[in-house]
């Protein structure tokens, strides 16, 4: 089937050729971010006063991945799997317990605060909830213009005003909105403001933490299209954190699946959706209902038993084994490593 929109034809037969393409899909001029063996453990103390440590919550427990310039890495998982903490550790909003976060050749976990301040503008974040992530007492203009004026990216007020107007029109808002307050805007419009704020510092790398999950379906598509257009226009790199697998497939070049603080599978988007190898990925994919009753009638979803264990007391061996429908005896004893089992397809499961 040569010549057509090849890379995303849902047919299984095509996937043999695919391992190379998810990575080469967009202009891949080098790695922009590399995360190596990232760990973030929160301590649990016994009382307010004595502060005796009684346990550790391993929110992120040895996560490694890299992102190339101009690509989108999707990070999926259920609540509590550590995907947001991973994002916060990259931003150094939470200082990692151990591991490296190498952004454009610099390890952010080791550099001094002063230097970090210089790098921060280049990494921006779009938050999930457009209702609580915008200061209700600031106008849209002040919210979008705060960064540029603090970092002196503009010479004077007139410049700032122009810059804000330009940013607002870039994200599809009327520049006159600059004088309005967040409560006057709808959810979709607020999320556009969040995007404009992330763009205001001329960032090259944006962490999108569930940017559409608080929005209505018809508005979700508007924001996703906006993010894609901006990526193309400004050569942005995204780490797209989400739990909605259909959205993640749409926007990502590669996808990493997290479970209980660990990455269990990472590969190109088409490969992941055509050929999921980890049982958890398979269960996640089959749990997503498809908006078509005819297709649904033919599917037999894998229903996982039990719930996500507490990261305070993770199960021994493979963290997924108590819920796994393929689990064998050794799964409760030996923890699997993330290994490349097929070209560019990494899985952490003892069966491979």
């Amino acid at each position, binding site marked *: 089937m040569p010549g057509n929109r090849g890379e995303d034809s849902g047919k299984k037969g095509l996937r043999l050729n695919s391992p190379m393409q998810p990575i080469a899909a967009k202009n891949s001029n080098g790695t922009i971010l590399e995360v190596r063996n990232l760990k973030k453990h929160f301590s649990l103390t016994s009382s307010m006063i004595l502060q005796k440590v009684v346990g550790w919550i391993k929110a992120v427990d040895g996560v490694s991945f890299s992102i190339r310039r101009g690509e989108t890495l999707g990070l999926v998982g259920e609540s509590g799997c550590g995907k947001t903490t991973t994002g916060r550790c990259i931003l150094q909003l939470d200082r990692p317990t151990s591991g490296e976060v190498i952004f454009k050749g610099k390890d952010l976990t080791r550099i001094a605060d002063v230097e970090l301040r210089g790098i921060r503008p280049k990494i921006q974040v779009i938050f999930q909830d457009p209702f609580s992530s915008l200061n209700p007492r600031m106008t849209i203009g002040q919210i979008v213009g705060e960064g540029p004026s603090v970092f002196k990216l503009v010479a004077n007020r007139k410049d700032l005003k122009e810059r804000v107007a330009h940013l607002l029109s870039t994200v599809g808002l009327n520049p006159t909105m600059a004088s309005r307050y967040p409560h006057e805007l709808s959810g979709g419009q607020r999320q556009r403001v969040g995007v404009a704020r992330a763009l205001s510092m001329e960032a090259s790398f944006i962490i999108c933490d569930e940017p559409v999950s608080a929005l209505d379906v018809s508005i979700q598509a508007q924001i996703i299209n906006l993010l894609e257009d901006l990526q193309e226009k400004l050569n942005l790199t995204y780490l797209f954190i989400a739990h909605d697998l259909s959205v993640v497939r749409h926007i990502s070049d590669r996808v990493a699946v997290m479970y209980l603080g660990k990455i269990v599978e990472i590969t190109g988007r088409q490969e992941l959706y055509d050929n999921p190898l980890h049982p958890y990925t398979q269960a*996640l994919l089959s749990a997503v*209902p498809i908006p078509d009753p005819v297709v649904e009638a033919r599917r037999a979803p894998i229903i996982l038993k039990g719930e996500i264990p507490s990261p305070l007391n993770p199960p021994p061996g493979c963290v997924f084994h108590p819920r796994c429908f393929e689990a064998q005896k050794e799964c409760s004893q030996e923890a699997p490593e993330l290994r490349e089992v097929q070209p560019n397809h990494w899985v952490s499961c003892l069966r491979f």
Partner: protein
Amino acid sequence: MLLEVRNLRTQFFTPEGVVRAVDGVSFDIQEGETVALVGESGCGKSVSALSIMGLIPNPPGRIVEGEIQFRGRDLRVLDAEGMRKIRGKEIAMIFQEPMTSLNPVLTIGRQLTEALEMHLQMKPQEAGNRAMEFLKLVGIPDPRRRLSQYPHQFSGGMRQRVMIAMALCCEPRLILADEPTTALDVTIQAQILELLKDTCRRLHVAIIIITHNLGVVARYADRVNVMYAGKIVETGSSRGIYQSPRHPYTLGLLHSVPRLDQPRKAKLDPIEGQPPDLADLPAGCSFQPRCKFAVVKCNQETPSLCEVGENHWSACWVWERVGGGSA
């Protein structure tokens, strides 16, 4: 016929004006079937459910018009005492937030037995046994110990199971499930919906499932009512609506979500614009400002539901030009 809602209008009288949350909605529920109310936030789907339950806060809200016939009785003319006998017994409700809809200072056991003692006049011992039976039915391990625990000792998924047990334990004829899984993770959502469907089928309970998730509707509903700005704009069997949507809003919704079973589209196809302000609705069809198919007539006259196929109704002037083929 289990439930018959006719021309329901629920309005909220606010300083900003009259909010027409539900604006002339009619639908039926048969015994044992699953019907979905689909739409986005603010389209009136939850207010419809609260109206049926007689739970509209007054003031500011009031049902200004319409009939709600439940097994031959008009619920609107019942007094508070009469309504209390139906609520929780014959019609039960499952709310979206399992975190806030259970009382944090009462044990799960107390919350389950309260309804049994009130509605079925059970003795505490008998009620306790039945509560345990239902916790077991919804798949909560070790139910005897769990009965004496408090909501904070349960996870989100477990709390939603408790809510389902609570809704089912008085053997209602109808359950109103308002976004029952929206707050839950995908794998837990699949567990809970499967449980709800199985137990309701077994006990022959009808469900009105209120959701914005088109996939959930496709998987679980027999019939669908699509709501927009307080009105039902399309209604029919799930298959009919998904295969040949005849209202531009339904078509737009189906096109705007990425689908896992189909090749990835280069671009998503969103519905442009914003939903209207319910206190200030546009003239004519409420969807017309966002509609790709709109003609002059659309901003002059409000279309009402007309039959567009077998058991398939759409409120659109130009439905013949909309969809038709597979979505």
